[in-house]
């Protein structure tokens, strides 16, 4: 096939993403750099210096780091278990396990998060059970642990899927070789499986960290309105204050953190992004 003609197949997408991805980002930048009377402004610096924003940003970063870490700690052993199970049963099971973790996402995430209120509340499912068993109450609703739980819950599948996929891709001969050479199970995991599944881990971290950092829904639903994350402030600036300039300026500050996160993951990946299945699923 004629090479240049084939490349043209990407043209519709190139036009689409220029129009709906690149230009909109410049519009945000434009609003962030200007003020309401049209002149240039230092809105971005002001947004970064505002103590409310700083506190919200710091909280968001801490919460999302914790949530990402918990997700990783849950997802990695789980992926090992899953790959051991699907290794035995063959390929269809891979699809089945993948679907088990995608399935909850087909029920709206807002309604699932709201259901956590029912579970965590003082008169909720868990506490009724604890009361019945004569145990002390669990009182985390409307507090930071509930928000972190919500983040872990909502984004855990985004950590499981890439890690699981990358472990499945590992050539089993490497693992056998390690064992032949006298490594025990734990050593094999740390010396062979873990380094080889690193691309999946990095993809998972990005896919959990960014949405946790910028959510406003989870803090709304499980935080009782007492904790403002940076997403809440951006949302309020646009919908409540109608102040697009301040909102865009804070979005620009937020993007700096996202770019840093992307750069870190790119650096540690050192691989062509197109070759790894970031968040993708395999059937």
């Amino acid at each position, binding site marked *: 096939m004629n090479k240049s003609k084939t490349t043209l197949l990407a043209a519709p997408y190139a036009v689409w993403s220029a129009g709906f991805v690149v230009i909109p980002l410049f519009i945000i930048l434009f609003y962030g750099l200007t003020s309401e009377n049209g002149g240039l402004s230092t809105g971005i610096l002001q947004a970064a210096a505002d103590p409310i924003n700083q506190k919200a940003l710091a909280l968001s970063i801490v919460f999302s780091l914790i949530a990402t870490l918990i997700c990783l700690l849950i997802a990695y052993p789980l992926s090992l278990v899953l790959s051991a199970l699907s290794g035995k049963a063959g390929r269809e099971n891979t699809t089945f396990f993948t679907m088990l973790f995608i399935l909850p996402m087909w029920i709206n995430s807002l*309604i699932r998060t709201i259901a956590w209120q029912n579970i965590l509340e003082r008169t909720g499912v868990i506490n009724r059970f604890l009361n019945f068993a004569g145990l002390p109450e669990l009182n985390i609703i409307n507090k930071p642990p509930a928000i972190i739980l919500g983040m872990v819950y909502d984004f855990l599948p985004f950590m499981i899927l890439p890690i699981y996929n990358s472990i499945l891709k590992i050539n089993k001969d490497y693992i056998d070789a390690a064992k032949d050479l006298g490594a025990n199970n734990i050593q094999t995991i740390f010396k062979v499986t873990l380094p080889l599944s690193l691309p999946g881990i990095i993809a998972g971290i990005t896919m959990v960290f960014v949405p946790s950092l910028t959510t406003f829904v989870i803090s709304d639903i499980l935080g009782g309105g007492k904790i403002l994350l940076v997403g809440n402030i951006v949302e309020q600036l646009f919908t409540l204050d109608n102040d697009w300039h301040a909102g865009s300026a804070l979005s620009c500050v937020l993007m700096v953190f996202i770019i840093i996160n992307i750069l870190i993951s790119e650096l540690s990946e050192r691989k062509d992004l197109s070759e790894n299945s970031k968040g993708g699923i395999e059937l």
Partner: protein
Amino acid sequence: MKKSAWAGKLYLILVLIFLYAPIFTLIVLSFNDSKSRSHWDGFTLDWYISLFSNEYIMNAFWNTILIALVSSIVATLVGTAASIGMYRMKLPMKRLMMGVTNIPMLNADIVTGISLMLLFIACRMTMGFASVLIAHITFNIPYVIISVLPRFASLDKSQFEAALDLGATPVVAFRKIVLPDLMPGIIAGFLMSFTMSLDDFIITHFTKGPGVDTLSTKIYAELKKGINPEIYALSTILFAFVLLMLFLINMKNSDRTSRRRGPKNWAFLRKATAGISIGLFLCLSLTSCASSYDYDDENTLFVYNWGEYLDPTIIEDFTEETGIEVIYDEYETNEVMYPKIISGAAQYDLVCPSDYMIEKMISEDLLLPLDKSKLPNLKNIDPAYLKMSESFDPGNKYSLPHTFGTVGILYNKSMVDPEDSFDTWSILWDEKYKDDILMQDSVRDAMMVALKLLGYSMNTTDPNELREAQQLLMKQKPLVQAYVVDQVRDKMIGNEAAIGVIYSGEAIYTQEENPDLEYVIPKEGTNFWLDSWVILKGTKHEENAHKFLNFLMEPEMGWRNFDYITYSTPNIGGRALIEEEEIRNSEIAFPHLEDYYGLETYSYMGDDYERQMNRLWREVKSF
């Protein structure tokens, strides 16, 4: 070894319980006979039945499915083509394209959503179904590309070349050799983007227009006032359906392993996809016909009202009597309604804003004066409330009261010390009730409580008084369990908190559900509010709007609506029709205004003032 396998399985089960626990909670709630999620009233299937007649939820559901399907099909086509093109690109160009592809995936949803919203506004595009669809296609394409592009790595080029050598055209060779190899990636990409689209809230939230709702935005709107159990029912049906599909697919898969995977399967899939696309196209064209209302039709009326604020049977009766078709939309706050009106995107005729918002709309010349000769039923409205309305609408020129009420304290007799007095805002600062207090999560209602306690006007502009009230609220924050809006209702019914700040209209309903609850108007004074109908300037249905208002003021309608929403009606004739004496003469629903001290309505204070107040409130919530 055996032991670790067991441990592994147990671990898997625990994680699955974690992931599925909320879904099971939803399933249980869908069978609950109570409208409130906080207590169990026995088993019922009613929500499943009423679900299918709930136009709003069903519309939102079909919108969700339609947007997910259309956006993922378009994304699959564009994304697959792009992947083929990108595969043949030179490296720098490919890098650039890959970088752009990563943006929507790695960027924050909120930034993507806002950036698209600003683009649509800059292009003067009316936000609605199309804007949501464009947004979803935009964030879906990358998922297709990252699923399809890696497939080329395992592609055997020599087969393709052999096909060409044997005389196949490039297109045929592509279809016979390359496409089957790409297919798993294409299907994975399609499924991934379908899932992402189905589950998206944030991007839809910012790019949707009036009248267009997906399930996510509908649920978010209901979050503030309590989730309609029909949504639990819908989620349960969906879950059962998806689970069934999963098992069917799984069985089909195990079936297939015996045979070799051949192009035959893909031929079937191709046909199925084509079938679905054609079906969808038909659906889409049907819906677009249905949703493009005929704006010039004489016999229509566009009404924009608060959620759950009008008995739907009243609208049906109106249409039956007059032949006028009512297109009815709902909003959650004045602040959501206002931008939609001024953007001119939606051509509503009648709206029902609150006092201060009406004042703002009058000052901006957005309203049409009422023609009272066409409203003979005005005689049914209690003059006392018309007089109260004069504070924001002098001469009652523009507005007609729909409901009114106060803001007060709701407390649970079984959870508080009977020695305490609850007719004062200061009880909300009592250390004894730490973590047992629910405050209103809106700037003006929260500030009102503090200002009244300090003895100031709730419309004060004095920066010192405002600062003082803010300090008081900050002092209160450690005692507050949560800042909520209409969730106060469910939480108080479920004994989740002992004291809450609530609108009087909700109080009667909560008392019916939980007899321990008591409502009082604090002695320091409070907000007396009115929500009133206004006709928008530029209406094309002035005549119909008057007919509708006159119909609403009939005593029977006033009574029926009160019975349905439990918010006080200013309709004297309607009130007289209430059967239960204790409700007809309820001090909560129909307080003797002259007996209370310090009742005030909110005034509109200007945009700068509002931003300043928002800022004060953000400081309270932040620190």
